């Protein structure tokens, strides 16, 4: 089974097969965009890997945030989407025209700056959420129109609660 792994414009097709399990490491054959390499993985924890490739050593942390995998190597951080190649075929056909803006953290809605029906530009301010003593501006991820506003000033929201819908 191959995976499509994407971070921004970088996209890799990756297939990994375990060749051998030793006491302190697993040996994989990894094919990345058609190139094969042998990779040694020592699991420091399920999401913390020590990787050796051609004797190059990488101490790699992986975190899952929803469908994204955030990977840290020596202070460099990547956000990857990892999808089963077959799954990918499905989802690309289902793209909806609406974006649901959700709360990135728990907080208090201080102000909703836009009204329903307003045309907004990408990065335009939508509402202000207070959390950790700071007022944080929630901006539009794209150009579009405000289709629905689900919260009002004074509302407390949790991470993931829906705030507005941009169409």
């Amino acid at each position, binding site marked *: *089974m191959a*995976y499509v*792994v994407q*971070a921004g414009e*970088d996209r*890799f097709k*990756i*297939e*990994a*097969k*375990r060749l051998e399990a030793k006491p302190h490491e*697993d040996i*994989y054959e*990894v094919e*990345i965009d058609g190139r094969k390499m042998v*990779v040694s*993985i020592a699991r420091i*924890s*399920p*999401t*913390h*890997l020590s*990787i050796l*490739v051609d004797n190059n050593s*990488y101490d*790699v*942390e*992986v*975190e*899952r945030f929803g469908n994204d*995998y*955030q*990977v*840290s*190597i*020596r*202070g*460099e*951080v*990547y956000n*990857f989407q*990892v999808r089963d190649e077959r799954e990918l075929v499905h989802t690309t056909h289902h793209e909806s025209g609406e974006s649901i803006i959700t709360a*990135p*953290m*728990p*907080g208090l809605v*201080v102000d909703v700056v836009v009204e329903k029906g307003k045309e907004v530009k990408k990065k335009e301010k939508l509402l202000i959420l*207070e*959390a*950790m*003593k*700071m*007022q*944080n501006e929630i901006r539009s991820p794209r150009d579009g129109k405000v289709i629905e506003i689900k919260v009002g000033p004074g509302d407390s929201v949790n*991470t993931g609660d829906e705030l507005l819908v941009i169409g």
Partner: protein
Amino acid sequence: MATSPFRKILIANRGEIAIRVMRACRELGITAVTVYSEADRASKHVRYADEAYEIGPPPSTESYLRIDRIIDVAKISGCQAIHPGYGFLAENPELPKACEAEGIIFIGPDSKAMALVGDKTQARRTVEAAGIPIIPGIKEPIEDLKKASEVATRLGYPILLKAAGGGGGKGMRVVEKEEELKSSFERAQSEAESAFGNPAIYIEKFLIQPRHIEIQILADHHGNIIHLNERECSIQRRYQKLIEESPSPIVDPDLREKMGEAAKRAIRASGYTNAGTVEFLVDQKKNFYFLEVNARLQVEHPVTELVTGVDLVKEQIRIAAGEPLRYAQDDIGLKGAAIECRISAEDPETFLPSTGKITEMIEPAGPGVRVESGIYEGYEVPVYYDPLIAKVITWGRDRKEALSRMVRALEEYRIKGIKTTIPFHKRILNYPPFIEGNYHTQTITEVEPSMENHHIEIGAVAATIVAMAETRISIQKARPGINPWKLSGRVNGLRGSGW
């Protein structure tokens, strides 16, 4: 092991600074008492303390800002003194006033000096009278937009709006032109109200690309005042300091001497005692202007500790107990260079707060690295308080060594489960003007998102390996009703292409 003037101290704070103060108490043989909100029962400061008292619900207005409850705890527990840390009540003169009324020693200035320096208008007037240059601006707090507009027009844009009631960058806004004034003024008022309970704002001329440089002071009750060199804190975002260092790359011994003397004069004129910081802006011609006095221990105090060898918290405690300063000005050296990065629970791209549980954590160590943190593996970062969760401070024989150690330490620091500003700090540390020491308070806006992707392929492989393992586990978990032999077959099938 050590003797101290106090037997027992109340630390009226939380997080890394509460632990910092408690460490000093332990080293001095003082019993450390602390307070906590309902959200903080499992916080590190409660675990570190000798005694801990719950003082109310999570919002700080109902707990850490409740002077009455804090005084009660001090009395019940038999504390002789209160250390406020920074933030919360640290610059509220009502706390030292309440202490004075109850015969408890406040580890900081007295209420009168704190009120004076906390009132920025009055503070400016006082230090201006002592012959110290101040930034052009008005000397009155403003609550009214029309008045604000008049003053701004007179000073000429750009101007700066600041909360009259407190510091720390909250409520601060630059206004580039008249059209922006209304919304900025209102936002600043609202933030000032929410942070300090006081919507008053004052306005000053905004200097172009200035540097923020401050002088650390210690002043005892016997009239002795010394300074402990400068810290440069020009790396700021929305007027929140992010990186601080000592010495400043642009301060030479002559300027240090002049600024140090000015700071001491400001402190003397204000009748201020204990540890304090005099903040200046320095323009491109190295003219310096008094900004304000921070009437407390600063977040960035460790950089001064590393280059002078003085433990500022212990000196605060000794001063509060009435001891004369143990150091004369000549005893204060300046050895090597130190730098601090403030690590916040924020997304490093958007700076939105990131709360949640810390699932794995490895802190940096080794030569020249100091970590001050209030977190641990398993800790839930709460939504109610400041996002500062840790500080990394490095020392080097010279600035270059301190910086290379900081990069190394940031690479070692791993905090999982929440997002932090570590990647952002690494970008600044790699930004050539910063490396050259050639930066100012606006520098941060120039730093581009990182384009480093040396390791992207390895990262993609790691994500794949972990995703494969998770797929397998979730298939196992999701099908409890399945015949185990069949499940085993499925898992083995998957194993063929993964873990």
